[in-house]
């Protein structure tokens, strides 16, 4: 069934028109990638879904319910998680506290934290350290852990490989594909081979609109269709 | 009867304090940097005038013409502003407000206990050593000077054969002249290319920098200019009152009053703060205990009659007492309520809102309408 449905969303930052009618759908259990050049509206699409920047026009439906106009924390409570660009972990909280704060109220915190540390054993080692002292890769793992303990049905993942060494990117990719077994992912990723590798389907965004879409397994990273929109 | 404007004496306060509020708005309203220590410059101007008059400043005689004193006070304050600004403009937002507040409080606390300025520095200095009055006009030409002050000022009789003014009225017009000149000077600066850069800094400092302006020097320049006029305002205050106290000059709540005037009058509209302060003074006088300018209480006494005034409202509290308790001398409360309402609902202030409605400065729009211009 359709988990997420964005219809003709128009979003503005102040007076600048960023999304000019984005429409897309995500089925339950899918991994969908959003690709496109910098500044075309990929991150804004995720923010629009979360109602961090509510659309002025158009609708966002999650499990058939209209999200537009709701508070972000309500959207999050409905099972939408966010792993933002540059990770945005809480640098002044300890690693464990970063995970703990993401555990929903009705869930047993200790159990959730244990589970997160089982998934990311590296983090257990640094549980009491300030998260700001972690390396970029560790921070990305922490951001993932934070997204996963929320028991979200839909994870919005923004540029998970950005600024990481190739070896670390591999581990992040592995963690994401593990996560994809239980949850639905909507993924923004500049690294096209990685995006196509993880995703089942993709949308190409350009100038605030969806200009193309396709099946990830049938499309190569150097496909002419993609290169048109991705090369500068 | 209820008069619309406060009496002349209050209007003099409106003029010089309005000038101070304008100078505050010049830096805070136009560049967006909240100068929370602006009272330092007002106080510098006020103290400078009195210290010279008391022969405490070397090389300046007690009889130095008042106009020179105002300019010198302005220059001293401008230098002080450059010193303070040089370290403060590396900061912005709340931090800028706090560092300027810090500087002004250091000065306030220092002046409050510095026995050089007065025998009792807590009460502040008064003019003791000067025999000449503080005159406004062309220095050196006696016939083109009029002295200000309630007791020491000049009065004019039979000007043009029929106009006569008392000392307070003369003070009002002469101080008004200086304030008007300062207003036009600031107005010129705001509308010059320099002023355009200031507004650009307020709107988007990064962009102003990207376009190639060294915003630091522009901010510092604007700070010095605003300090200059703040000190002139302080000098007028000292010249008219002939005594000042730390609380009425250097204290941070003096800046607070300017802020109040600016918000009510219109932040970033040069003339606005003057109207804002006029508004504040009008309310204050309307609710003052004595009601000299024709305040609320005498009016009610005249019109309600003794029977109504002694009507019991609640538990022995009569209407008269209620007015006494909740209105008289408590203008702060109502001014505060009005201020908060302005911040919430009319953030552009009186003048700013009128301009928004008219679509431009009031003078220009009214003039255009009178001429019958079509937009």
């Amino acid at each position, binding site marked *: 069934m359709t988990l997420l449905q964005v219809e003709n969303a128009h979003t503005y930052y102040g007076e600048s028109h960023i999304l000019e009618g984005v429409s897309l759908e995500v089925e339950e259990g899918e991994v969908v990638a959003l690709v496109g050049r910098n500044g075309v509206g990929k991150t804004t699409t995720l923010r629009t879904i979360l109602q961090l920047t509510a659309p002025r026009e158009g609708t966002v439906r999650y499990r058939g319910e209209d999200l537009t106009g709701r508070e972000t*924390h309500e959207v999050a409570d409905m099972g939408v*998680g966010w792993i933002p660009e540059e990770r945005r972990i809480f640098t002044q909280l300890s690693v464990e506290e970063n995970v703990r704060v993401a555990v929903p109220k009705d869930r047993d915190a200790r159990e959730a934290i244990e589970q997160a540390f089982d998934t990311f054993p590296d983090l257990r080692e640094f549980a009491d350290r300030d998260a700001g002292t972690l390396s970029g890769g560790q921070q990305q793992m922490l951001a993932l852990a934070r997204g996963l303990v929320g028991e979200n049905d839909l994870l919005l993942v923004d540029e998970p490989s950005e600024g990481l060494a190739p070896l670390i990117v591999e581990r992040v990719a592995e963690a994401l594909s593990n996560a994809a077994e239980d949850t639905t992912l909507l993924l923004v990723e500049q690294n096209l081979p990685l995006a196509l590798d993880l995703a089942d389907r993709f949308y190409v965004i350009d100038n605030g609109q969806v200009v193309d879409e396709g099946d990830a397994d049938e499309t190569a990273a150097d496909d002419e269709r993609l290169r048109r929109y991705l090369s500068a | 009867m209820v008069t619309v404007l406060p009496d002349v004496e209050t209007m003099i306060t409106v003029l010089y304090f309005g000038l101070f509020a304008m100078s505050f708005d010049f830096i805070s309203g136009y560049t967006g940097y909240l100068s929370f220590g602006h009272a330092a410059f007002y106080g510098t101007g006020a103290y400078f005038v009195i210290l010279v008059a008391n022969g405490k400043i070397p090389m300046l005689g007690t009889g130095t013409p008042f106009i020179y004193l105002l300019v010198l006070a302005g220059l001293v304050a401008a230098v002080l502003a450059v010193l303070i600004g040089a370290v403060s403009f590396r*900061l912005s937002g709340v931090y800028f407000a706090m560092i300027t507040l810090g500087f002004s409080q250091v000065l306030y606390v220092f002046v409050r206990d510095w026995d050089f300025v007065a025998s009792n520095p807590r009460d502040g200095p008064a003019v003791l050593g000067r025999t000449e009055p503080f005159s406004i006009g062309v220095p050196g030409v006696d016939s083109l000077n009029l002295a200000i002050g309630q007791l020491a000022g000049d009065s004019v009789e039979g000007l043009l054969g029929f106009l006569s003014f008392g000392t307070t009225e003369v003070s009002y017009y002469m101080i008004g002249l200086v304030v008007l000149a300062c207003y036009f000077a600031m107005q010129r600066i705001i509308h010059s290319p320099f002023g355009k850069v200031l507004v650009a800094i307020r709107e988007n400092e990064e962009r102003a920098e990207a376009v190639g302006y060294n915003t630091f020097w522009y901010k510092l320049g604007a700070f010095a200019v605003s300090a200059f006029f703040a000190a002139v305002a302080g000098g007028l205050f000292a010249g008219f009152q002939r005594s000042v106290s730390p609380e009425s000059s250097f204290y941070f709540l003096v800046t607070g009053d300017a802020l109040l005037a600016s918000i009510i009058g219109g932040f970033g509209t040069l003339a606005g703060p003057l109207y804002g302060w006029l508004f504040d003074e009008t309310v204050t006088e309307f609710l003052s205990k004595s009601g000299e300018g024709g305040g609320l209480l005498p009016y009610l006494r005249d019109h309600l009659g003794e029977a109504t005034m002694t009507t019991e409202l609640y538990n022995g509290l009569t209407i008269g007492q209620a007015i006494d308790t909740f209105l008289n001398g408590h203008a702060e*409360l109502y001014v505060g309520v009005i201020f908060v309402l302005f911040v919430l609902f009319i953030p552009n202030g009186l003048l700013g809102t009128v301009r928004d409605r008219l679509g431009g400065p009031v003078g220009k729009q009214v003039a255009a309408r009178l001429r019958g211009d079509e937009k």
Partner: protein
Amino acid sequence: MMEIVLAGFIDALGQFLRPENLASVLVDGLAKAAIYVMIAGGLTLIFGLMGVLNFAHGSMTMIGAYLGGLLMVFAVGGASGGATRLLVFFLTLAVTFALLAGLGGVVEVGLIRRLYDRPPVYQILLTFGLTLILDELVRIAVLFYGMQPTSDWQAALGTKPWFLSESVDLGLISVSGLSLFEIVVGAATVAGLWAFLTRTRYGLVIRAGSEDAEMTEALGIDVRRVFTVVFALGAGVAGVAGTLLMWDPAWGASVPLAADTLLPAFVVVIIGGLGTFRGTVVAAVIVGMADSVTTWWFVNEIDFASLPEMTIFLILVAMLILRPQGIFGVEEVGGH
């Protein structure tokens, strides 16, 4: 001439360095630090989470002093013993905390909430306007009820248990009971807030929200509601501080207490780093010590009554020049 001044100075320095003098300056400094941390603690919580520099904070402290005084005057009779008075005082602390927290909550929901979308200057303006209103309302109430015929509120001061007015002998030095009491209450307040911030789920949420409100919201937490709670908490702490000051003759309940506590609170909060509670605690100790040291020098050697106050503002200015983000502030976090 120079030699005489210098000799006097060296003599005074010798006096100052004597153990008993150093010890009493230390205790005095801690007592002042306790007061500073209490008047600044709520302010820093509010700023840390919401980025609102609450100019009405001093007024809330002042209202706390009056409410605390009123409650004490009502509850304590002339015959009440010291222990009873102390017990009533702690109940009073709880009540003023609750009342001020209520006031803070109302202010946040009714006024401040409307301004989050505007530039931060508007929050300064609004809370500044609020001080005018609150201060004048208190002035009216005090006049109306004839509560305070002289500038010292004797009735409230008179509710102090006898042993807080006595000196306590600590061997080397004797210190006033009130100073010790202030240190105890200040330390308890810090410990309580510290435990709340680090040991409870709500404290965790507050710390997360202080660093990144948007991210916290996206984790399913209603940050707006946390704002209300923190504003109420901050106001409540101010009320507790006011109640403590009500007994201290150096402060006392009066309308100017609002401005008198607001400025040092700003200084402490900025020196510590806007919005870091840990920084505020350290800064309070620094400012308290600077205050007590300069007070000693004023009393004994330097005839300049404003020396302590001036030193405090000079520390503020120096800090903003050298390290504007404060002792524990993080540059980007401080850049609200």
